[in-house]
């Protein structure tokens, strides 16, 4: 019997049983699958099947104790089904607005899962099309079609907490290195997928842009056991809106800037970690001078560094080079 058939039969068998079923009964019902050869291998096979069904959303428990008629395995029917969800038309329309952006997009890490979640929702509730006047777009990935594969591989590694080996071309050093990384999170930043993880080579947290990876190999050893734990104090938030001057390249330099009023609505979201010093003056802790100077120069006369003199001089020198 193939595995798909066995798992479906197991679901049917457990659901149709009026009381928990023992391991002996399961073996008797599936003699070809769980009662041949070594007992320990049969038990492991059953545990693997049970884990797969639990992943599919089928809650199988081992019940024992005075409250059950007999010890054994059973499906918790109270947790088995999706409850009816009542969306009003506006909610349903918004759900489809966000889903439409990604459900056909292979560059979305959970594309197949989102589709099956939507099928389930459609089965239990009425849905309304997205608002006709709005659209949300999601980047489709690199022209080579490499991203979607990498995104899905890394998402899978992240879910199971498996280490990966990558071949990575670092723009800053112009070198390709092979690195082992423990993935901590995946962020879409300015249209580029970026992996945040523990870099075994540098012994620290690093960001890796997926389009600069040429190979990703997920550790296939002990697939059911995680390779690492993500520290409880780790958060993706600092990386989510990270600005070019916030890359940790050197010790922080506090820089005071003045921004033209008409640019504030656009630039304020970039200055969430800056300290306001009046309506349009801010103190920014810069840990990557070059990134900061690029940002300031692109803004031309809409932003001006007030202090320190060191930063003002660096900007002047850079500009004089253009004359």
């Amino acid at each position: 019997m193939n595995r798909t058939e066995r798992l479906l039969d197991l679901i049917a068998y457990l659901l149709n049983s009026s009381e928990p079923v023992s391991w002996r009964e399961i073996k008797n019902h599936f003699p070809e699958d769980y009662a041949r050869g070594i007992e320990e291998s049969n038990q492991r096979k059953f545990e693997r099947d049970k884990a797969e069904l639990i992943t599919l959303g089928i809650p199988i428990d081992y019940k024992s104790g005075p409250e059950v008629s007999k010890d054994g395995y059973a499906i918790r029917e109270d947790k088995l089904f999706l409850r009816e969800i009542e969306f009003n038309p506006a909610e349903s329309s918004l759900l489809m607005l966000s889903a439409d952006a990604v459900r056909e997009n292979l560059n979305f890490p959970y594309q197949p899962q989102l589709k099956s979640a939507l099928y389930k929702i459609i089965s239990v509730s009425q849905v309304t099309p997205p608002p006709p006047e709005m659209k949300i777009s999601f980047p489709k990935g690199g022209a080579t079609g490499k991203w979607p594969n990498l995104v899905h591989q890394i998402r899978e590694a992240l879910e199971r907490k498996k280490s990966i080996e990558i071949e990575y071309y670092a723009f800053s050093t112009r070198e390709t290195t092979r690195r082992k990384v423990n993935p901590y999170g995946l962020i879409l930043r300015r249209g580029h997928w970026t992996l945040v993880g523990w870099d075994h080579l540098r012994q620290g947290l690093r960001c890796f842009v997926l389009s600069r990876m040429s190979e990703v190999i997920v550790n296939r050893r002990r697939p059911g056991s995680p390779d690492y734990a993500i520290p409880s104090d780790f958060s993706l938030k600092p990386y989510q809106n990270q600005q070019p001057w916030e890359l940790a390249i050197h010790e922080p330099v506090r820089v005071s800037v003045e921004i033209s009023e008409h640019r504030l609505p656009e630039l304020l979201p970039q200055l969430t970690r800056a300290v306001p010093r009046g309506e349009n003056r801010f103190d920014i802790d810069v840990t990557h001078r070059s990134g900061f100077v690029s940002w300031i120069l692109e803004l031309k006369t809409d932003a001006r560094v007030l202090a320190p003199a060191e930063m003002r001089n660096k900007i002047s020198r850079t500009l004089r080079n253009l004359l």
Partner: protein
Amino acid sequence: MNVADRINRILLIMSYVSQNQGIWLDDLAKKVEMRPQDLLKEMEFMLLIGKPPFRPDDYVDIYVEDQRVFIEYDQMLNRPLRFTRSEAVALLVSLQLLDPEVDPDAVESLKSKIQEVIDRSEDPRSRIENRVVVDRPSRPVSEHFALLRQAVEEHLKVRIDYYSLTRNETLSRKVRPYHLTKRLGYWYVEGYCELRRDVRTFKFDRILAADLLNDSFSLPEGVDVRRGGNNFLRFPGDRQMRVYFDADVAPWIKEQWGDSVEPGEDGGVVLTLESETLEFPSRLVLRFAPHARPLSPPELIEKVQRDARKVLSLYDAPVSAS
């Protein structure tokens, strides 16, 4: 398709047909994204579910009559299963794309309803939704969002004060807003600009003021937000500008501009842009200075020098106290 995905699909077919007895075979095939002939094969396989000895009604009987699909069985799988962990995360991650401003009440209640369903079926300790982020941190989109949405829905013209980055100037314009789109985390309004007499895209972050006008317009034929996007954010105009970037920054330029880049001297690259104004190419040179140099046309070289001098004047002058 792996075992888990196939089982998931079979269970979906069972619950979907249970809820929609007599669904057309072709419609069901579309729903589950299979060819009708493949669906029929899968239905044959479904007849094998269950192990003898069968009790009455133990087996799954799924069949087609006059191109309609029916299912009969006495098992419990007649409703969709709870969300799997990955499906729950998929929903939560996709909902990150919805900004509250889109519809403050509905966005909040939608997110809380989905969260509630997940909370009922998920072990909270095993969540990983905060491990994948597809949008920038939640922040106010624009104080003008609701007004522009109303204008789009009611086909009313608006007057906006808009800062144009490509012209480096703020002008008041009358606009017929066609639709709202979000790309790479930013919202835009696309519509006909009466000042430029053409369709233009306006970034919400650069709309400094907006007023609804008591002046309606008809949406031109063929305007469809679902099909749009080809001209999105393309610089109007066809003047060619060429900029050289040295080897230190060449990888970033190649990554960002791809097809518009050719190899240049000493490991650098030459980027060719088409733009109506000199403003954007000049800003690009300043941003990458001292690793960028304008090549052509001569007006761009002059513009970069003018801009550099203007910015330099800010640093030659002493800083006044606030």
